[in-house]
């Protein structure tokens, strides 16, 4: 569900920006920054119809192409940054599954990628932040022990308007990735295999067929990739995009076609270990080349669930979870599994933590609404937590149990800012 802000109050950059005002807090019309709207639920939605649209803040403020340190305004997207940096041999150390997130959004959600086990999450590579708060004006946050910095990373935009981000990029040898794909027949096998591959590869991610029948439950494909200096490919980076031109009247994603599609995908790799080169954008951003892909879910849209459960609970809890999804029959083609590294988010309410993460999405209907609440409870019981950037359904109790430092974020929240997500989980 791509939220559309109504009545946006744009910050069009520099002296024309409209920063959060104290008056907003007093009159109860709190606002929130809005970047590129890739959060799935309500974590990026303001409670009022006042929104600080940050896409006008897209300037590079300073960059040193010899050290890979770049400071840019927070409204620039990762894709725009990569367009500048990749030809010069630099790439973000951590990138989520889409390049269409703003730098501010990446910080506010402490996004993670397929290389969490090596590089941690986005906040780990942030050297400094520029933050504007309604009561105290502009702050330069650089000290890693500064609680305001730790509150802002993963802080869902609630501590203030993030206006600039200073990042350490990493060197990459070329524009291509060498990747290979392997099948696994069960969740247990996935866990063993990913432990093996994590030690050797930069990017490791699993796709699981969540509708496969009883004896095939938990089967899927494991993709591993590394930046490559050489290699050749005929594929182009997915800059030429097709677009879903309109929202069909009903969801195109239905149980029967998902089962069929998943079976095709599972059997597609020709050998058990098939290796090839591809533009890194194809590996890292699989959906970015389909514009407005969310329209395929029809007018009701989709719900996403992404959770992380501790390692020792992972096999049991995720098997149970996948089992319930299979029995409900309302599946998604997107079911992504990854083992996180032994590394906690720097952010007070940052999502990434050691354990195994699973992301699923469902076309939205009554059955899937019930199912997702069921699954939220299951995650909660297993001692795991849910990802606010994807969430539209978790309860306040589940949130507070998953993120015990929430009180410190609430204490540091800028009174002029409030999101619907925060309003929901604070009750």
């Amino acid at each position: 569900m791509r939220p559309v802000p109504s009545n946006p109050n744009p910050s069009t950059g520099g002296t024309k920006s409209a920063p959060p005002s104290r008056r907003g807090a007093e009159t109860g019309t709190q606002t929130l920054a809005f970047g590129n709207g890739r959060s799935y639920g309500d974590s990026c939605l303001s409670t009022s119809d006042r929104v600080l649209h940050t896409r006008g803040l897209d300037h590079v403020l300073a960059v040193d192409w010899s050290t890979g340190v770049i400071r840019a305004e927070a409204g620039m997207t990762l894709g725009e940054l990569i367009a500048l940096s990749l030809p010069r041999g630099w790439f973000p150390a951590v990138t989520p599954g889409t390049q269409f997130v703003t730098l501010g959004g990446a910080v506010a959600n402490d996004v993670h990628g397929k290389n969490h086990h090596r590089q941690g999450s986005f906040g780990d590579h942030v050297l400094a932040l520029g933050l504007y708060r309604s009561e105290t004006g502009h702050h330069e946050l650089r000290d890693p022990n500064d609680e305001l910095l730790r509150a802002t990373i993963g802080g869902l935009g609630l501590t203030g308007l993030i206006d600039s981000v200073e990042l350490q990029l990493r060197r990459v040898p070329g524009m291509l990735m060498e990747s290979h794909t392997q099948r696994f027949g069960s969740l247990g096998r996935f866990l063993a295999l990913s432990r093996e591959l994590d030690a050797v590869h930069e990017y490791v991610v699993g796709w699981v067929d969540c509708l496969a029948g009883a004896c095939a439950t938990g089967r899927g494909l494991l993709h591993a990739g590394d930046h490559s200096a050489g290699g050749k490919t005929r594929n182009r980076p997915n800059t030429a995009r097709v677009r879903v031109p309109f929202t069909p009247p009903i969801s195109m994603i239905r149980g029967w076609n998902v089962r069929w599609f998943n079976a095709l995908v599972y059997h597609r790799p020709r050998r058990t270990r098939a290796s090839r080169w591809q533009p890194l954008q194809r590996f890292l951003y699989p959906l970015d080349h389909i514009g407005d892909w969310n329209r395929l879910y029809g007018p009701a849209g989709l719900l996403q669930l992404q959770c992380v459960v501790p390692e020792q609970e992972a096999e049991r809890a995720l098997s149970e979870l996948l089992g319930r999804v299979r029995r409900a029959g309302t599946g998604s083609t997107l079911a992504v599994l990854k083992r996180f590294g032994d590394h906690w988010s720097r952010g007070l309410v940052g999502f990434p933590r050691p354990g195994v993460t699973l992301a699923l999405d469902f076309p939205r209907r009554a059955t899937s609404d019930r199912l997702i609440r069921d699954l939220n409870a299951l995650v909660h019981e297993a001692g795991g937590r849910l990802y606010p950037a994807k969430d539209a359904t978790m309860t306040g109790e589940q949130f507070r149990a998953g993120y015990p430092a929430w009180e410190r974020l609430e204490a540091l929240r800028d009174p002029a800012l409030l999101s619907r997500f925060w309003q929901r989980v604070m009750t």
Partner: protein
Amino acid sequence: MTTRALILGSTSAIAGAMARELAAEGADLTLVARNPQRNRMVADDLRARGAATVREIVADLGDPASHQAVLAEAMQGAGGIDLTLLAYGVLPTQERCETDINRLLEQFRVNATSAMALLARLAPLMAARGGGQIGVLSSVAGDRGRRSNYAYGAAKAALTTFGAGLGARYQGDGVTVTVIRLGFVRSPMTEGLTLPSPLMSSPEAVAPAILKAIRRGLPTAYIPRRWWLVMSILRHLPEGLFRKLDL
């Protein structure tokens, strides 16, 4: 060969998008704007994006007294100018121009009078150095007097006609003048206006087309191109019928 470009009104959105296109080619850029902090921010961004050199000049181009010094500094700094983009202007509220005569004349001064003065100085300077290309950002608003924006339209009409004539005058000297008739572009200038969204474009979308038109040395261009059709029809409607459209 590195393009040496002069951007007049560099802190505006469309000029900014065009400057980014030029920076990506490694051009030598001279930026002229009123606000030094904003101009610095734009300049730093362009340097990061690959501009060979970026020079910043602070001036109020709405005041013709500033022109001689600005052009001299620009010419000297870059050693000559290959491409000039005239992109500064103000969009006044039509209602205000109807009641406040000073505002009416002020916007005409900035948008038309000062621009004509600047172009009149610039063209011979570029001709003396062997030629070059000038792009003038005008508007479809200048094509016909419309009830909703005739103050601005008049200024743009003056600019369009002057630019066309100037181009005719200097074509023999190797200077081309391209009058860009822009449609509605979403930018800080048009912020807050209710404009029909199918007709809206963005600075990033129009910038490459503008640059291409200037480089081809076209005398005029409607950008985006669909405006050529829209205006061809609107321009030829009898006045009575045009007024009924209440545009």
